[in-house]
């Protein structure tokens, strides 16, 4: 792997048991009303996209994972996160 700049995304989403009224509203009032009955649920989330200088994609991902925990990018009482490399 080569040092470089990587694009890392963090998705912060409510835990499955924490209601997501925004996702519910989008589902009920837009998607189902618009006739897309195939869609059975929607969860809204917050996405942060970061450019990260690192030695490898794994390092970039580890840095973002660590900062998400250290700085409470999410509140573990109510949220889950996904950290993924997109470029």
């Amino acid at each position: 792997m080569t040092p470089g700049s990587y694009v890392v995304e963090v998705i912060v989403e409510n835990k499955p048991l924490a209601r997501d009224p925004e996702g519910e509203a989008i589902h009920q009032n837009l998607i189902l009303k618009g006739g897309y009955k195939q869609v059975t649920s929607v969860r809204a989330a917050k996405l942060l996209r970061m450019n990260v200088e690192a030695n490898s994609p794994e390092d970039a991902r580890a840095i973002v994972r660590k900062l998400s925990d250290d700085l409470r990018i999410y509140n573990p009482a109510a949220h889950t996160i996904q950290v993924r490399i997109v470029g």
Partner: protein
Amino acid sequence: MAKVAVIQYPGSNCDLDALEILRDIVKAKADLVWHKELDHDDYDAYVLPGGFSYGDYLRAGAIAATSPSLKIVRNAAEGGKPILGICNGFQILVEAGLLPGAVLRNGTLRFACTSTKLRVETTRTPFTSKAKKGQVLEIPIAHNEGRYYLDKEKIPELERTQQIVFRYVSEEAEPTEQANPNGSIDNIAGICNQKGNVMGLMPHPERASLAMLSPDSQTDGRIIFDSMMRTLRGLEV
């Protein structure tokens, strides 16, 4: 004489209201302190006021929770001093980990600005010591992110440790779904830490402490500040 600090964050907008009530109504010695200038634990109690610190970016209270002022507040909390977080102040205390759980966007997806009835669930905190258990206070709310959340299985433990301080209730003092303005789990409107000296609530007692400014001219919110002052004055004796 006991001194209280009202901590001002960028975006606080209920700081002066809290200061006014402390100084002019409950006759406390109170200072407004910019959060970056709070570098010593020189006060006997701290109030984190309502507002929209840092524009509520990322999450309400999340950025203010990293303010250096929280180090002082954390020390003061560990030392048993009364710490009160109102609305955004509550969100900051939760995000700083001084209180458990999370405060999420209202279930209604609407900004909730209304009068609520709150049942006092415990009088063991320095903010409810003058109230009676089961007493109902009428205090307004004004927030978009006020839905208190904690995993359902953790609620009985919160109840057992007497950390639930206020619940939204109906006219009949029952925690009904209709009386719950924001979808908070178990109608929770305010909680405290295990020791009881750190309390946060979404409703605004400072907006119901002066008859001229409060809904129905009642001053139910005063009991929270009066209780705090009694505690502080008790320490002086």
